[in-house]
C-alpha cells in the first residue's frame, strides 16, 4: 500500500502539465474539473496511505530513483510514509481539493482561469514533495517550489505592479529563510554525513554527531521555518501576500504552505529537543509573533488583512508550542487551523465576491440576511478560532496554553493575551461584516447574493471539519478520565518527540473554563461595541491615539526594513558601482592608455594583412602532418 505514495504527487503534476500544454483547447469547466479531480485522486490515495498508517504507524521509505550521487553525498528522489507525513498529505489534499472546487466558481470570470488552475495544481505537487521527501534536500525542492508557486499566485494579476511587488517581497524574504535552510543542510551533511531522516533520526540517530554544532544547526533550520511560516522578524511578507486571489490566500497562505515551517521543526524534533537554547529561540519568536499579529489584527479593516494577521498570530502559537517541546500539539493546531482558517478565507472570498471586490469591513454590514450559508459557516469558523468548546480551535489552543502554564508563566500570560485579542478581533470583523446595517453603496447592496454551489459546498464541508475536527486531539487528562485517548499524540509519537501534559484533569478543566471565559468576555465586548451600540470602525483620518496609529502601521516594520536593509544595500551597491567599478578599476586598467592605443593600431593593421592566412596555413599544415604520422 505504501508504494502508492509515489503516485500521490504525480497526479497534480499531470494536471499542471495537461492544463499548461493542452488547456487552450479545453473549456473552463473541463479545466476546473480536471484540476480538482487530480487533487481529489491524490486525496483518495492519501486516505488509503493514511489508513494503513493508522494500523502500522512505522516509517517506510519508497525510493523512486537516484537523484544526486557524488562521492559520499547520496540523495535520492525517495518518499517517506510515516504518521507525520501521512497526516500532512491527508489535509493538504483534502483542503486542497475543496479549494480547487471553490476556485472553479470564484475564478470563473477571470481570463487567466486556466493559468490559475494549473498553478494551483503545481503548488499541490510541490507541497506534497515537501512533506513526502525522505530527506532534507527533497524537502528543499518542495520548499522552493511552493515558494515559486506562491510568487506566481500572489502576482497572479500581474498587470498591477502592487501585486508584483508583494510577490517579489514574498519571494525575496523567503529566500533569506532559504539561505538558513541551505546552510543547515550543508552543516548537517558535513557533521552527520547524510541528509536522510532515516539515517539522521529514525533508525540511525546520526543527528547526535552534530555535537557542539547542534544549536547552530537547529537555529539555521528555524531561520528557514521563520521565512516560510512568517515568524517575527521575517513576517512582513505574509500580509502583503493577500494581493493574490482569495483561494490562494486560503490554500497557500493559511492552510498549507505557511505551516511548512512547523512541519520542518516537528520533523527535526529530535534535534530541537537536544538544544535548550534553540528551543527558547523558537518559543520566543513564536510568542512575539503571536502577540504582535493579534495586536495588529485588532486595528485592520481589510477583511483579508485581519485574517492574514490572524494567521501570523496563530502560526506564532504553533511555534511557541514547538519551542516548549509540544511538537504533536503544534501539528494538531496546524490541522485544526487548516480547517477553520481555510473556511474563514473562503468565506471572506464569498463576501468579497458578493460585494463586487470590496474588502473594507467598514463598507459592509448586515450581510447575514443576504448570504445565509456564508454567514453560518463563517460564524462556525469564527467560534472555532476564538477557542470555544467543542469547536476545533478550542482543543488545540487549550493544550498550547496548558503547556505554557506548566513551562513558563510569562509565556502563558502573553499567549493568553493573544488568545483574548483573537476572540475580540475575529468577532469585531464578524459583526462589522454580517451584522448591523449595510454601509456600502446602493449598487453593491443590489448586487448582494449568495455564492454558487461550487463555492458553498467547500464552506459547508470545512465548517463540519471545524466543528468536529478537534476531537482527534482530546486533552490528555480529561481524555483519560473519559476513557478517550489523546489519539493524535499517540499516533504521532513514533515520529516526533512526544510531550504529555502533566496537568491533572481538574487543572485542565479549570484552565479550559478560564480560557473560554476570557474569550466569551471578549466576544461580549465586541458585540456590545459593534452591534448593541452600532459603532463602526474609525476611518483612518479619525484616528488620534498614537498606539492605534502604530498598530495600523503594523509597528512600522516595512519602513524599518526599508531604512536599515534595502536602502543601505542600494547605497553600498551604487557607491561601489561609482567609485570602484567605474573609477578605481578603470583607471588602473587604462592607466597606460597611450601604449594601449599604440598596440591597438599595430594589431588593427594585422587584420587586413596576409599574416592571418599564414597563421592558418601553418596550423592546417600541422594538422595535415599529424594525420600523416
Amino acid at each position, binding site marked *: 500500500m505504501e508504494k502508492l505514495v509515489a503516485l500521490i504527487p504525480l497526479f497534480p503534476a499531470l494536471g499542471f502539465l495537461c492544463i499548461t500544454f493542452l488547456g487552450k483547447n479545453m473549456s473552463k469547466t473541463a479545466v476546473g474539473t480536471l484540476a480538482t479531480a487530480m487533487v481529489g485522486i491524490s486525496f483518495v490515495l492519501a486516505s488509503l496511505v493514511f489508513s494503513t498508517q493508522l494500523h502500522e504507524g512505522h516509517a517506510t521509505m519508497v525510493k523512486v530513483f537516484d537523484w544526486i550521487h*557524488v*562521492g559520499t*553525498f547520496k540523495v535520492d528522489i525517495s518518499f517517506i510514509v510515516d504518521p507525520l507525513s501521512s497526516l500532512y498529505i491527508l489535509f493538504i489534499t483534502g483542503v486542497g481539493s475543496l479549494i480547487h472546487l471553490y476556485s472553479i466558481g470564484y475564478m470563473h470570470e477571470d481570463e487567466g482561469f486556466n493559468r490559475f488552475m494549473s498553478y494551483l495544481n503545481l503548488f499541490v505537487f510541490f507541497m506534497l514533495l515537501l512533506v513526502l521527501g525522505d530527506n532534507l534536500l527533497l524537502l528543499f*525542492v518542495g520548499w522552493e517550489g511552493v515558494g515559486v508557486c506562491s510568487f506566481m499566485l500572489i*502576482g497572479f494579476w500581474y498587470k498591477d*505592479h502592487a501585486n*508584483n511587488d508583494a510577490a517579489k517581497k514574498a519571494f525575496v524574504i523567503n529566500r533569506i529563510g532559504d539561505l538558513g535552510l541551505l546552510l543547515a543542510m550543508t552543516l548537517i551533511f*558535513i557533521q552527520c554525513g547524510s541528509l536522510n531522516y532515516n539515517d539522521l533520526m529514525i533508525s540511525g540517530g546520526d543527528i547526535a554527531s552534530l555535537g557542539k554544532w547542534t544549536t547552530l544547526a537547529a537555529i539555521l533550520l528555524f531561520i528557514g521555518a521563520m521565512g516560510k511560516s512568517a515568524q517575527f522578524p521575517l513576517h512582513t511578507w505574509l500580509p502583503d501576500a493577500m494581493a493574490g486571489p482569495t483561494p490562494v490566500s486560503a490554500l497557500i497562505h493559511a492552510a498549507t504552505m505557511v505551516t511548512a515551517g512547523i512541519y520542518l521543526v516537528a520533523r527535526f524534533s529530535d534535534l530541537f529537543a537536544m538544544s535548550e537554547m534553540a528551543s527558547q529561540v523558537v518559543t520566543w519568536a513564536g510568542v512575539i509573533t503571536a502577540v504582535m499579529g493579534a495586536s495588529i489584527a485588532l486595528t485592520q479593516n481589510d477583511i483579508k488583512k485581519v485574517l492574514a494577521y490572524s494567521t501570523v498570530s496563530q502560526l506564532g502559537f504553533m511555534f511557541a508550542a514547538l519551542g516548549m517541546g509540544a511538537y504533536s500539539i503544534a501539528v494538531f493546531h496546524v490541522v485544526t487551523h487548516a480547517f477553520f482558517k481555510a473556511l474563514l478565507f473562503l468565506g471572506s472570498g464569498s463576501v468579497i465576491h458578493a460585494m463586487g471586490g470590496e474588502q473594507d469591513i467598514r463598507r459592509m454590514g448586515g450581510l447575514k440576511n443576504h448570504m445565509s450559508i456564508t454567514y453560518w459557516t463563517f460564524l462556525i469558523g469564527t467560534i472555532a478560532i476564538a477557542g470555544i468548546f467543542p469547536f476545533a480551535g478550542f482543543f488545540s489552543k487549550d493544550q498550547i496554553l496548558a503547556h505554557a502554564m506548566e513551562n513558563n508563566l510569562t509565556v502563558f500570560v502573553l499567549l493568553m493575551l493573544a488568545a483574548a485579542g483573537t476572540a475580540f478581533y475575529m468577532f469585531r470583523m464578524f459583526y462589522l461584516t454580517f451584522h448591523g446595517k449595510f454601509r456600502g453603496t446602493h449598487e453593491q447592496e443590489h448586487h448582494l447574493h449568495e455564492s454558487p454551489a461550487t463555492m458553498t459546498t467547500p464552506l459547508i464541508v470545512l465548517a463540519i471539519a471545524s466543528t468536529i475536527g478537534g476531537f482527534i486531539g482530546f486533552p490528555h487528562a480529561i481524555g483519560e478520565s473519559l476513557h478517550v485517548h489523546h489519539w493524535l499524540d499517540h499516533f504521532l509519537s513514533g515520529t516526533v518527540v512526544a510531550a504529555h501534559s502533566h496537568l491533572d484533569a481538574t487543572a485542565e478543566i479549570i484552565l479550559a473554563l478560564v480560557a473560554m471565559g476570557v474569550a466569551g468576555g471578549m466576544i461580549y465586548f465586541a458585540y456590545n461595541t459593534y452591534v448593541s451600540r452600532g459603532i463602526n470602525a474609525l476611518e483612518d483620518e479619525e484616528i488620534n491615539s498614537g498606539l492605534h496609529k502604530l498598530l495600523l502601521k503594523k509597528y512600522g516594520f516595512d519602513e524599518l526594513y526599508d531604512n536599515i536593509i534595502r536602502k543601505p544595500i542600494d547605497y553600498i551597491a551604487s557607491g561601489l558601482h561609482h567609485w570602484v567599478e567605474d573609477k578605481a578599476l578603470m583607471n588602473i586598467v587604462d592607466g597606460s592608455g597611450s601604449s594601449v592605443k599604440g598596440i591597438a593600431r599595430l594589431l588593427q593593421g594585422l*587584420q587586413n594583412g596576409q599574416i592571418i592566412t599564414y597563421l592558418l596555413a601553418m596550423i592546417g599544415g600541422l594538422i595535415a602532418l*599529424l594525420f600523416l604520422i
Partner: protein
Amino acid sequence: MIALAIFSIPLLLSLLLFNSRSNSNKLALTGLMTTLVVAIVGKVLQSYGHIISLDVPLIDTIGFHFSLILDGPAFVMVLLTLIAGIGILYSIDKEIQNANRFYAWSMMMIAAMLGAFMAADALMFYLCYEWALIPIFFLILKWGHGEHLSKITMRFFLYTLFGSLFMMLSLLYVHQSMAHPTFEMNAMWEAGKALTAGQQGWVFAGLFIAFAVKMPVFPFHSWQPSTYDHAPIQGTMLLAAIMLKMATFGLVRWALPMVPAGIEEHGQWAIYLSVISVIYASLMALTQKRLKLMIAYSSVAHVGMISAGVLSNTDQGTVGGLFEMFSHGILAVAMFAVYQMIESRVGHDRMNEMGGIRTSAPSFAFLFFILVMGSVALPFTSGFVGEFLLLQSLSNTGLGLAALAGLSVILGAAYMLRGFQKMMLGGKAIAFSALSSKETMILSIAVIIVIALGIYPNILIQLIQNIL
C-alpha cells in the same frame, strides 16, 4: 583518432569557410552537429574499451606532446562546447556582413576551445587557451559595435594575454623541476605535487591570476562588462557560455591535481577573493539598468561560486563545478538569446522603459521565467544541483564563507525578479511580436535541458565522474 576528429572537424571547416562563399550557416551548423555525433559515438566506443585518445610527441627535447583525451570532465566540456556552439550559431537572426568569415572565426574559436578542454599536455592547453583569444578578438573588432570598440577590444585582449603570462611562468616552473622535463599531464601533476607547499602556493598564484582574469573574478573583471556589451551577441555568448569555462576547467584539470597543498596551505586567499567576487558582482547586477549588463554581472557571480567551490577541493566541489559549468553555459546562451529577442523587438534593453511584455507574448514570458528560475538556482533546475554542491563544498572551507557566498541566493532573486517584473509584467503593455519558431526552439531546448538536468542530474554527474 576520434579525439582528433572532434578537434579537427571544426578547424578544417573554419579553414574551408575562410575561402568559401557558400551558405556558411548551414555548413557550420552541420559541421558542429557532425562533431557532436562523433563525440558521442566516441564516448560510447570508449566505454566498450576502444582507445579514442591520441598522443603524438611533437618536440622531444622539451617533452611537448600533441595529446588529446576524452575523460569525464573533458567529455562534458566538449558536449557543452558543441551544444552551446550549435545554439549560438543557430540563434543568428539577421544577415551578417562577411558571413563566411564570421563563421570561420567562430569555428576556429570552437576548435581552439575543444583543444583546450581535451588537452592532456600542459603546453598544448596553454597554446589552445591563448589561441582561442585570436578569433574572438577579430569577432569583436570586426562585428562589434559602439564608440570605443577598438579600445575596449584591446583592453580585453591585452588584459587576458597579460594574465596568461603568469600561467606560462607557473607551468614552466613545474616543468623545469622535473629530471626529464615533459608537459605530459600526469607527469606535470606528479611534479607539481612533489614541490613544497610554499612553492606550490606560488605556482597556484600564477595559475589563479591567469584564470581569474578569464573567468573573471573581482578585481580582474573590469574588461568584461564593456566587452560583453560591445561584442556581437554571438561573440558574447561564446565568451560567457564557453570561453570562460576554459579558466574554471583549468582549475579542475590543472590547478587542483597539480598543486593541492599549495591551494590548501597558501591558496585560501583565492577562495576569499572568489567569495568577494560573488557578492560584489551580485551588488553590481543590482545596480544595472540594462538587461545585457545585468546578465553579464550575474555571470560573474555564478563563476565566482564555481571558483570558490572548486578550490575547496572536495568531490562535491569538483563535480558540482563541472556540472555548474555545463548548466551555466546553457543558461548563458539562453539568457543572451532572450536579450537578443527583446533588443531586436524593442530597440533597446533599458529595463525601466519596458513593461507588460507578458501580455503580448505569454509563451515567451513562460520560457523566460523558467530560465530566470534556473539562473537563481531553483531546485529541479540544473542551476540548483551545481550551486548546491558548490555551496556544500565551500562549507568545508568555512560555514561563514558559505553563508557569505550564499547571500547571492537572496541578491540573485532580488535583481532577477526585479528585472523580470520591469520588463515582462505591469499594465503598460509595449508592442512585442510573438517569437519565431526558431526563437521558440532555442529557448525551449534550453528550458528542457535545464529542467531535465534538474530532475535527473545523475546522468551528467555519472559522465563527469568517469575518472573521479
